[in-house]
């Protein structure tokens, strides 16, 4: 059953293909993310999920295919230009600015959208305004009391939260999350699921995640990537049944994650 008029997707991948040597890591991957939707991407280790995220964010160029963001073909654009068009991401391996405080990390994330990069003198008034804004996002991820701590001194889980705050702060149209729960404690991952659930509808997300509880409680749609190919895609229940059927016939190989 299709919705009668699905909103135009904010992110569309059309036939993305990428090889490393003879290894085809993305094999004509097509999928889309609609406004406000959480689209989960699951698949075993080495399936090519991270490589796909890199191609969407611009860190890697595809050999073929297109990335369309808000109706605009951004395949040829560098990462920063895609970010300026409303794309944000987190990395599978936590990626923050180690020397900067938690607050400064988020302020840094706010500057490009504020058009405040090529400023050659300190501007205390603007700093205060951005700091207040940044503090709200730290609060949101539970780091409200840790704003002055250098990112390098935060715990692993806190750094993951910080990175999420940095991705959310510029209020992106599309957010790419590469295994946000990986390596976080039980409590932190529950908080993360709650945070993402609270953001649902505000910003579209492509969520790569191994935690099935998180995936099936958050996702509107799920796509399954195996060996660089999308092997199943659709509503969570549909995909879950599909996977169970495959597991029954094919054995554990298809019982993913």
């Amino acid at each position, binding site marked *: 059953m299709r919705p009668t008029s699905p909103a135009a997707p904010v992110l569309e991948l059309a036939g993305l293909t990428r090889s490393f040597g003879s290894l085809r890591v993305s094999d004509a991957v097509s999928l889309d993310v609609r406004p406000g939707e959480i689209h989960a991407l699951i698949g075993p280790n080495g399936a090519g999920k991270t490589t796909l995220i890199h191609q969407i964010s611009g860190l890697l160029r595809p050999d073929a295919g297109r990335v369309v963001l808000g109706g605009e073909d951004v395949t040829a654009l560098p990462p*920063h230009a895609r*970010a300026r068009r409303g794309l944000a991401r987190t990395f599978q391996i936590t*990626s923050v600015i180690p020397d900067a405080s938690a607050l400064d990390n988020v302020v840094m*994330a706010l500057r490009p*959208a504020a058009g405040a*990069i*090529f400023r050659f003198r*300190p501007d205390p008034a603007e700093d205060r305004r951005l700091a207040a804004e940044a503090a709200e996002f730290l609060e949101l991820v539970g780091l409200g009391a840790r704003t002055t701590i250098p990112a390098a001194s935060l715990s692993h889980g806190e750094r993951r939260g910080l990175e999420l705050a940095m991705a959310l702060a510029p209020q992106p149209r599309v957010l790419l999350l590469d295994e946000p729960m990986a390596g976080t404690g039980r409590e932190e991952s529950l908080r993360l699921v709650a945070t993402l659930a609270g953001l649902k509808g505000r910003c579209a997300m492509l969520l790569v995640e191994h935690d099935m509880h998180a995936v099936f409680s958050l996702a509107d749609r799920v796509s399954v990537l195996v060996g660089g190919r999308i092997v199943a895609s659709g509503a969570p229940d549909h995909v879950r049944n599909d996977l169970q059927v495959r597991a029954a016939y094919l054995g554990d190989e298809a019982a993913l994650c």
Partner: protein
Amino acid sequence: MTGPSRQSPSRAVAIAVPLLIFAALALLPLAAGFGPKSYILSLGARVMIFAIAAISLDLILGYGGMVSFGHAAFLGIGGYAAGMLIDGGRGDMLIALPVAMLASAIFAAATGYVSIRTKGVAFIMITLAFAQMIYFFANTLSAYGGSDGMTLYARSTLAGMPLLKGETAFYYVVLALLLAAFLACRSLVASPFGRALSAIRQNPARMAAMGYDVDRIRLVAYTLSGTLCGVAGFLLANQAEFVSPSYMAWQRSGELIAMVVLGGMGTLHGALLGAVAFLALEEILADLTPYWRLVFGPLLILVVLAGRGGLVGLLDRRRG
């Protein structure tokens, strides 16, 4: 680019070190009266000129993580701009200094555009290569003395007045420029641009993913740095009343790196202290023994190993 990492600078050291150095520099001409005055003043001016160059290098090396092994090129460009303009009768500082800066900026922007795209060792080699190119080019300038260099028949004037002529006046002009350069760089590194530059050194992929044009920010920093070093070159030629291709020799570039590393990278006052310490040591050791370089090299390595943050790092740690 995996740049050298910066020690978190202690506030007290960051204030005390430059304050003491500038106070000592301001008072030096008074004390010089009790010794060989013109020797002390000209050594002092030289130290300050190299401090300007070292600070400019620290911007890209310490903050930007770009190990330029060709920074002496800008000393030469600034120096030749001064020499050529004085030779052509347009040596007034109000004209010659902006021209020296502009020439440096153009060379920095053009060579930076290419080199900024490389990382690590490739960046070191490509900046060295560009500096060598202009070094050999200067050797071919037969109208300006070729490899022998050129002697300036006079120093630059300042708004028509021979202000740079006397050693004391020249000294204070250099001091004023050093202070201005130091304060401007302090403000720059605390600005949104400076913070972005430092963050890019630490994590370029993260910064790009947030919307920062990493290459452009690096290029602007590289160009600003080269421009400032051109000022040092302009002053150096005026101080020595001479300029030659040796200004741009790779050894000179290496010395500039050594000053920054010796003092402590990514703090600015470290570069300031490093330039003072480097030239003072050189002067003292050269006086003691003709084999001073044999002592100097290991000494440098020792300081760098003992305190990863250079001299400034040692001061930091002594405080606890």
